[in-house]
């Protein structure tokens, strides 16, 4: 009991190895490499689905922001330039992309409303019900929008 404690490196080779491993970092088990893990929904629940959707729609909308500014630049080219774009933009596949845009806006907007409430400390225990209720509402709006986009009324 009176003997002094030996320094770490002399106590046990195993301890030295652990200390070195800690310094070196070593192999860390990850579910999937890097940001791919954000979108891995296996064995995950509603909250993670909401997080993944928010992230992917957010990134998609940032991309769309710059795409949209680029498209609007065509207006600077005059009426012919813009009309040329309109001819392409009214093709069914591009109208479908418009509906996809609205889907992204609805998912991101409605889920972010949920996040703002939860993140402010309000109703965190009802986050799943809130998510599905808002998504159900969004689905109704999306269907109406799709009908309008394709129907033209």
């Amino acid at each position: 009991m009176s003997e002094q404690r030996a320094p770490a490196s002399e106590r046990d080779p195993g301890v030295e190895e652990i200390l070195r491993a800690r310094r070196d970092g070593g192999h860390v088990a990850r579910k999937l490499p890097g940001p791919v893990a954000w979108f891995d929904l296996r064995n995950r629940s509603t909250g993670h689905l909401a997080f993944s959707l928010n992230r992917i729609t957010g990134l998609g909308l940032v991309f769309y922001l710059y795409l949209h500014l680029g498209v609007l630049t065509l207006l600077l080219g005059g009426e012919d330039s813009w009309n040329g774009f309109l001819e392409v933009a009214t093709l069914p596949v591009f109208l479908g992309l418009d509906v996809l845009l609205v889907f992204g806006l609805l998912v991101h907007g409605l889920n972010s409303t949920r996040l703002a409430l939860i993140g402010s400390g309000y109703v965190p225990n009802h986050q799943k019900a809130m998510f599905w209720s808002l998504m159900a509402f969004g689905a109704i709006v999306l269907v109406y929008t799709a009908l309008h986009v394709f129907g033209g009324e």
Partner: protein
Amino acid sequence: MTPTEGTPTRTVRVHRYDRGDDAPHMELHEVPVGPTTTVLEALRWIQLHEDPTLGLRHSCFHASCGTCGVRVNGKERLACVTSLSEFSGTVTVDPIANLPVLHDVVVDMAPFFERYPTAHPIVRESEFLPESATPDGIAEHDRYEDCIECGLCLSACPVAATDDTYVGPAALAYAQRLLEEPRGADRDAILDWADQDNAAWRCHAAFECTEACPSGVQPAQRIMALRKQLRRHRRDQGRDVPDRQSSEEKV
């Protein structure tokens, strides 16, 4: 030792890794099972009968110590109370994620504990001593120490999957518990610790920590409550929008 003929068996696929290995590999074992055989019992059978080099960590056998945290078929679980009968087919056992692996399914928990705030009360008065009166506004002592520090929440967290600087759900939940019942801890120090980009504001409310927690700590809810406290603290301190003049005066 091979299971006796007629004994039901399950295939258990175990993560194997040693320091110095280039990469981990998986090994398959046929383990004899009963209707209530747990993952921990299966791992121990492998260790005792087939491969004594298999590294695993356990202690209490009843979900109280938090030592045996692993991932079973990708889901964070305590091995001692996870029955193999919950799963069909091959059962895969991996170490919990986002912490360095020491050996097989044993992780280095030091980085987990290093994320905790340093301000904390070490010795607490007993609730049962006559002189242990409850503080003002508290009717009776309640148990706040549900956390068994198993690390399952950190493993499940999608932010911790990419950001090793994130303090994580357990540390934040702990900070919130200290605020609810400081017992001598410095509230301002805890709030300052939590008010960091890699602390309370890094959480994206995926709630996977709450899903993974075997003890009912509800870390995500605690983090949201912590944010509420932080905003209130800033408002009370009058530091909501710091003006340049006050910042310069402090220099």
